[in-house]
């Protein structure tokens, strides 16, 4: 099940993203405290933990939506702490959101084209006068977007408004938009929430295909234990803002501390406890 390079190189030093002593405080609540995380190139890392453990906060700090009180985020050896979201995506980290955030009144293709925004340069004058360079760039943006929309099997809906397509399709569209920014690290916040078993299976196959075919690393928050066990190379468990365990999926799965914090008392077949409710 886990025979991919991620695990083999786990001890190597090809770290793509690293957080050091990350701390985020909201008022009197310490959402994340002294959190260390390292993601290696080419692996799928799952961040799990009970609701309110601080997973999404970690994501928001990494992708620049929050600024941490303490600690640093290092991506490809460079500090990106405190950078704005639009700068983070240029650096090569693209994300999706827990509750889908698309541009509802724009077409699916336009949604994906937005992902290419950070890879294009045309300014005001070039756009008004439609210079040859700008036209070439537009063709490229469109080409990338069309490739990505085919990749997630939504070609038929390219001119449909994003708000009109099915929920599962919207999730895939959001992933496609993130991919259109040509990221090195894809950060997915609960990609399988709200999907039916068949869609979840497709999603898992899709993500594994991505890792295989593209130079990509994936960090995901996930509640569905089948997904976590099925595709992760490494699992990090959070509770109350702290890291309580990490390791290969099977190891984490049997860790008594994790079972206590995350799965509660339902250790017998209760692995899917929680995903349905938020």
């Amino acid at each position, binding site marked *: 099940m886990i025979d991919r390079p991620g695990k083999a190189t786990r001890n190597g030093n090809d770290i793509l993203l690293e957080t050091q002593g990350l701390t985020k405080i909201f008022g009197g609540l310490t959402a994340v405290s002294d959190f260390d995380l390292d993601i290696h190139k080419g692996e799928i890392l799952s961040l799990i933990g009970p609701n309110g453990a601080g997973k999404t906060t970690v994501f928001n700090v990494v992708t620049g939506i929050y600024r941490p009180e303490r600690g640093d985020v290092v991506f490809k050896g460079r500090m990106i702490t405190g950078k704005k*979201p*639009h700068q983070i995506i240029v650096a090569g980290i693209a*994300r999706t959101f827990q509750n889908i955030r698309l541009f509802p009144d724009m077409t699916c293709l336009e949604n994906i084209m937005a992902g290419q*925004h*950070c890879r294009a340069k045309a300014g005001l004058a070039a756009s008004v006068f439609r210079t040859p360079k700008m036209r070439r760039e537009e063709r490229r943006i469109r080409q990338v977007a069309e490739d990505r929309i085919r990749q997630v099997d939504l070609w038929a809906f390219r*001119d449909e408004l994003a708000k009109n397509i099915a929920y599962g399709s919207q999730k895939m569209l959001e992933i496609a938009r993130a991919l259109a920014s040509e990221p090195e690290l894809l950060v997915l916040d609960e990609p399988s929430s709200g999907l039916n078993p068949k869609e979840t299976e497709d999603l898992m196959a899709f993500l594994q295909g991505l890792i295989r075919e593209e130079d990509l690393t994936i960090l995901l928050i996930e509640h569905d234990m089948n997904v976590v066990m099925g595709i992760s190379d490494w699992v990090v468990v959070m509770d109350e803002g702290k890291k309580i365990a990490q390791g290969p999926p099977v190891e984490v799965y049997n860790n008594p501390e994790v079972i206590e914090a995350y799965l509660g008392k339902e250790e017998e077949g209760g692995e899917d406890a929680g995903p349905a409710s938020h």
Partner: protein
Amino acid sequence: MPVNTNSTGSARTLSVPRWIMPMLAGAILLIYPFLVSDYYIDIAFYFGIYALLGLSLNIVLGEVGLFDLGHAGFYAIGAYVTAILNTRYGIPIFVLLPVSGLAAALFAYIVCSPIIHLKGDYLCIVTIGVGEIVRIALINNPFDLTGGPNGVFGIDFPRIGELLVIDSSLEYYFLIWAVVGLSIIGLISLQNSRIGRAWNCIREDGIAASASGIDVRYYKLLAFVLGAGLAGIAGNIYASKLMCVSPESFSFWESCLMFCIVLIGGMGSIPGVLIGAAFISLFPEIFRPFAMYRMLVFGSVMILMMMFRPGGFWPRKRGGVSYRSLMEDSGD
């Protein structure tokens, strides 16, 4: 823009080829002034001014979804820059056309930089304040420049030496509609560029836009600066047409009218803005005989519109990116 044989148009769907409408509108605008009296040419001139103002506010309100109820302030800056520089220093109006646009744009940049992060209604209230501050400052006659409540008189005609002097209703009519036409072409280009898409993304979801790599602050400011610049240009033409400017022309009511233009037409829709501007500028003329009930009818129309066509008369149709393929395989 393909302007060739008319046999290629797909008659399969109800929608006509998309260049027909602009061509028709252009032709009507070209012939119209030769068929009517100066009075009606002037009405069409003010239609043009409102169209330009509507287009300028449409960038901010329609494309980016920022509530700007102080747009008359930018319009005023353009008009007063023209009036003061022309009457005091004799700078030709044509030179001041870009200057007044740039002045209004610069003003927008300075006042909007600190408030651009405000959301929705908060921004709306601050822009109302900006508009009112401009108007009241003009009344207070700072440095003896603005002439207080009386305003500035004796603004010249736009002219290039003696070669071209724009001094008749007909010429003003063509001046404003030439500017409107060029603005429309530029704005359509922008709508179909990464800048236009970035604006729409911000309107749809600011956080997602930011996470998709769009510098939200920069593009919001750009919209304000560009919108103010166009309003400033409208101010320049308005000032030289009227030959005088006074603060009462740039009241809060003017800002409201511009807001209505965009809402009536449909947010982010250029044909919509033209319809809205036509409604706002022609409506008082049509209802002149019933002047007493004008506002009553106006109010009722607005309410009915909001009830039955909340998206405006001509909302922007999406799907422009692959319009051709859409026409071929699914017609709609």
